[in-house]
């Protein structure tokens, strides 16, 4: 019996993140009391290094660990999203009100472990790896959500997330066991091959349906989204920002990859999976937008907005073409900057004001014009108004929808975008047109990391809107290399 051969070259970005996580733990244990800054730097360097390495091996297509770990340009691109998000979240972490008095060593290592888990999840080539990756990512996330243990709401967020997460994992596992039972293999490629042969249409659909239900929990698709507002509101804000981009992306990517593997099988069985996804997409867009309208807590509002954005992303998947996946990749990059950016501003304001209600944003323009301006950029971009990046993201998504004649989805998408303008405008109005409760308040103090992060994110939100061509080209070539044109 030969030992499994491992090509560690393909695992380098993951290994870098993993060793950074352990290193942070060790330094945290051994170091002196003034170690906060060095841990922060260590995390940033680890993520930065992993980012560079992942970008360098971007066009590799290979698999290792007997095919359970797959690497291709699409997956690498998604990993860039993860690493970039983790990097930006770390940059803006120090200003967080809930955790600024706590020791952050475990926080950083949990963040790195979660990133590692998500990266593995994205690369997974079989069901077991999917489950392992998911759990490696989820468990640190549960702890991160409840990291501010002195805060009741944070505790509530962690517990709710954990209970429902465990519940959905069970459902996912149930679906997986069905798939295994049907096909006798855990490898995605083999399952995709044998479901076509099996002829068991009902069973395949049932198994995939259960699997989908488990996965959509991660993606925060309605009606599996109930935990999102509570968890985002209670978690430390940078953690919520991390969830809003990374955990959704991970679920979506797994779904995209599974559908790519299963496509032939589904075709053979004449399973129409797009219809159910379309319904979920419409539900997600509508519920995320409509309930957002009456929210008065900005973090909760952004949580609903992030739900609505998943609905837009699903449109790209419903299209079922490689152009649809292009548009998703474009959207992910665009969304990453504006979403984390908006959460970052909330982080800063929340520390100065002691809360993140709409009232806390009143008169922000007078106190900190730059903070207000960057928030305005992120919000307008989230709405999808040109010339900001959000417009480009939505443009490609809706263009694909129209090309594939998914008119209902496109119309609902546009209408919900209009409605979403309403609740983003509430924040803008508070920042620019309302008088502050305390007119003499000092400007909001921000740490250098936060400042750099905000500048970076505003820059990219503007730049990708004005000049999206490189991003579009990258997304297209990644998907083309992966799917073979």
């Amino acid at each position, binding site marked *: 019996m030969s030992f499994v051969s491992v090509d560690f070259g393909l695992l380098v970005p993951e290994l870098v993140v993993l060793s950074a996580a352990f290193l942070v733990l060790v330094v945290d244990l051994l170091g002196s009391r003034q170690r906060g800054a060095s841990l922060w730097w260590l995390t940033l360097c680890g993520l930065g290094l992993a980012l560079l390495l992942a970008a360098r091996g971007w066009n590799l297509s290979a698999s290792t660990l007997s095919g359970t770990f797959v690497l291709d340009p699409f997956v690498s691109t998604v990993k860039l999203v993860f690493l970039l998000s983790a990097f930006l979240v770390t940059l803006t972490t120090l200003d967080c009100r809930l955790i600024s008095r706590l020791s952050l060593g475990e926080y950083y290592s949990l963040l790195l472990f979660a990133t590692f888990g998500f990266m593995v999840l994205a690369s997974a080539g079989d069901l077991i790896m999917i489950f392992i990756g998911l759990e490696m990512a989820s468990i640190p996330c549960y702890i991160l959500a409840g990291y501010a243990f002195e805060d009741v709401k944070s505790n509530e967020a962690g*517990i*709710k997330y954990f*209970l*429902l997460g465990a*519940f*959905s994992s069970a*459902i996912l596992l149930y679906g997986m066991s069905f798939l295994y039972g049907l096909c006798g293999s855990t490898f995605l490629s083999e399952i995709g091959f044998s479901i076509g042969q099996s002829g068991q249409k*009902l069973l395949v*659909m*049932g198994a995939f*349906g*259960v699997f*989908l*239900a488990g996965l*959509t*929990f991660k993606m925060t698709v309605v*009606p*599996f989204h*109930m*935990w999102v*507002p*509570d968890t985002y509101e209670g978690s430390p804000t940078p953690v919520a920002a991390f969830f809003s981009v990374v955990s959704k992306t991970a679920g979506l990517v797994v779904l995209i990859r599974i559908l790519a593997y299963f496509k032939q099988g589904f075709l053979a069985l004449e399973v129409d999976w797009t219809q*159910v996804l379309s*319904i*979920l997409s419409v539900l997600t867009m509508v*519920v995320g937008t*409509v*309930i*957002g*309208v*009456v929210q008065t807590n900005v973090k909760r509002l952004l949580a609903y907005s992030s739900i609505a954005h998943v609905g837009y992303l699903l449109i790209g998947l419903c299209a079922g073409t490689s152009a649809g996946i292009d548009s998703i990749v474009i959207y992910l990059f665009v969304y990453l900057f504006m979403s984390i950016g908006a959460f970052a501003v909330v982080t800063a304001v929340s520390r100065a004001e002691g809360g993140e209600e709409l009232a806390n944003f009143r008169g922000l323009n007078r106190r900190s014009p730059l903070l207000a301006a960057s928030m305005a950029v992120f919000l307008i971009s989230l709405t999808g108004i040109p010339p900001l990046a959000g417009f480009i993201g939505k443009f490609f998504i809706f*263009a694909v929808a129209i090309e594939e004649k998914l008119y209902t989805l496109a119309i609902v998408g546009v209408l919900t975008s209009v*409605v979403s303008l*309403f609740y983003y405008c509430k924040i803008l109005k508070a920042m620019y047109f309302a008088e502050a409760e305390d007119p003499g308040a000092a400007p909001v103090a921000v740490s250098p990391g936060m400042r750099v992060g905000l500048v970076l994110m505003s820059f990219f939100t503007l730049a990708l809107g004005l*000049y*999206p*061509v490189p991003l*579009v080209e990258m997304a297209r070539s990644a998907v083309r290399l992966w799917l073979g044109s």
Partner: protein
Amino acid sequence: MLEHAWLILALPLAGVAGNIFLGGRLGRRFVSALSCGVVGLSFVVSVACFLELLAMQPAQRHFERHIFTWFLSGSFKVEGTLLLDPLSVLMTLVVSGVAFLIHVYSTGYMAGDSGYRRYFTYLNLFTFSMLTLVLGGNFLVLYVGWEAVGLCSYLLIGFWFQKKPAADAGRKAFIVNRIGDFGFALGILLIFRTFGTLEFGEVFSGAERLFPSGSTLITGIALLLFAGATGKSAQIPLYTWLPDAMEGPTPVSALIHAATMVTAGVYMVARCSALFVLSPLALAVVAIVGLATAVYAASIGLVQNDLKRVLAYSTISQLGYMFLACGVGAFAVGIFHLMTHAFFKALLFLVAGAVIHALAGEQDITKMGGLRSKLPVSYWSFLIAALAIAGVFPFAGFFSKDEILWETLLRRGPLVWALGAVGALMTAFYMFRLLFLVFHGTARHEGHVHAPPFSIKLPLVCLAVLSAVGGLVGAPLLFGRHFVKEFLSPVFRHVNGHVAAGTHEAGAGHFVVSELSMAVVSVSIAVLGIVLAYRFYVISPDVPQRLKERFARLYSILFNKYYVDEIYDTLFVRPLVSFATALWRHVDALIIDGAVNGSAFLVETASKVSRRLQTGGVQNYALSIVVGAIAILAFWLLR
């Protein structure tokens, strides 16, 4: 240097950024140095590009620099391309050179203004926009520059926005320009529909290949483009914004009138000469509008009393001559006149600014006089500029204007020529009327005359030299070569095939004689105008008054600018405003707002109802997951 032509654009843009981000912290001296420096360097780069083009074979003087792919959607692709050919490089030289001098002048003129940094930021942005317009390699980049120029003119004309007339003038300039821009945009869209591309080279070669002369489609495109030009270059019927634009700071007027903005239309028509020559109708329209504007604006200029407004009408009139040249197919001559006009018109405005500055804001020429000894530099510069614009040999304006009239005579006959000559006569008259009223005679003003600082004098002298000798580059009678025409000929090589081919070949010797005699005629016309002005305003100053009383009707029509502003107001502005008010009262406030508020109410109600589902209890959340999972299965399995 052609490889680095992007520097021409990047430098002024860097100036804008520098002024915005650093200008406030580093103070005025930094702002002055940066703003002038970047435009000066931009000029240096332009000169280097020009020299490099000169060193090439004439046929190869065409260089396109692809900078980036702007956007890309299916088959629609727009490139950010810079085009360097004789036409664009000549324009670049004029724009950056004159703009540089105006920047230097502004450091003196605006020294006491509280909006110093804002002023120079706009000025740099203006230069950048105009250079983008000129260097763009396709219609979309041209359009971006075109609109940006419109924006900057709005910002600068309304620079002193605390004054209501200035704010109104800025708005008027913007709105009137929008009307022309609408036609221009339609023209570009029609081009894209017809040719499937917006790149100059492809469009022009496609037009030549696919369409016969006189095709309706090309005529439509050309007329739409020309509609844009009438807005930007202040031609009938869209010229009304330009006289009002005098509310801006005087150097801005100089910049708008000489180097940027108004020349954009002429440049665009010359750039699209390949389209215009295919349409005799469009060319005729251009020529007629140009000629009419030239004569019409000159007649208004005869009686105005505001120093800057006279110059404004003179600009409109001179632009008319440029379009006349384009309309008769002599595009190179039109560009030549654009160049010489840039020199002397910038000079005229800068002198006007110096005079206004010296008299602490006085602009009424009836309250000036006798400034010759107090402002000698200004006086001599103004004299040179006036001689140049009147068309007296050997000043710059003579060569270009004489050639326009000559080409007109050659291609459109004596009647058109005669009208042009009348315009020239009036030009000479009103220019010297200004000169005599402002600088000669007795002083009709009180108070101290401020001496202009060095930064104001230096640009005056430079421009005076250019106005005096700048025309010699196009003096075939003296040198036997017309340098400007030769340099531009690769750009306009397709023109000769279409417009009145063969006029030049027939008996060149005979024509030299006539051209010479025509030159004598046009100088005599100019001298006649000057002599008339001298008689009216120096020898017997009571003549104008008597004429005014005798021809009171005519005078008041001219003085009130043919009542065109009032006519536009009754015909267009008021009906539009009352229509808009009715729409607002009845449609907007009732129907649209009602629909908006109604749907907002609906969404809010839905939101309030559905948020009740969000109970906060984990068991309910889990239930929703289960329900969701079952719903998916049920949907799939039961259907």
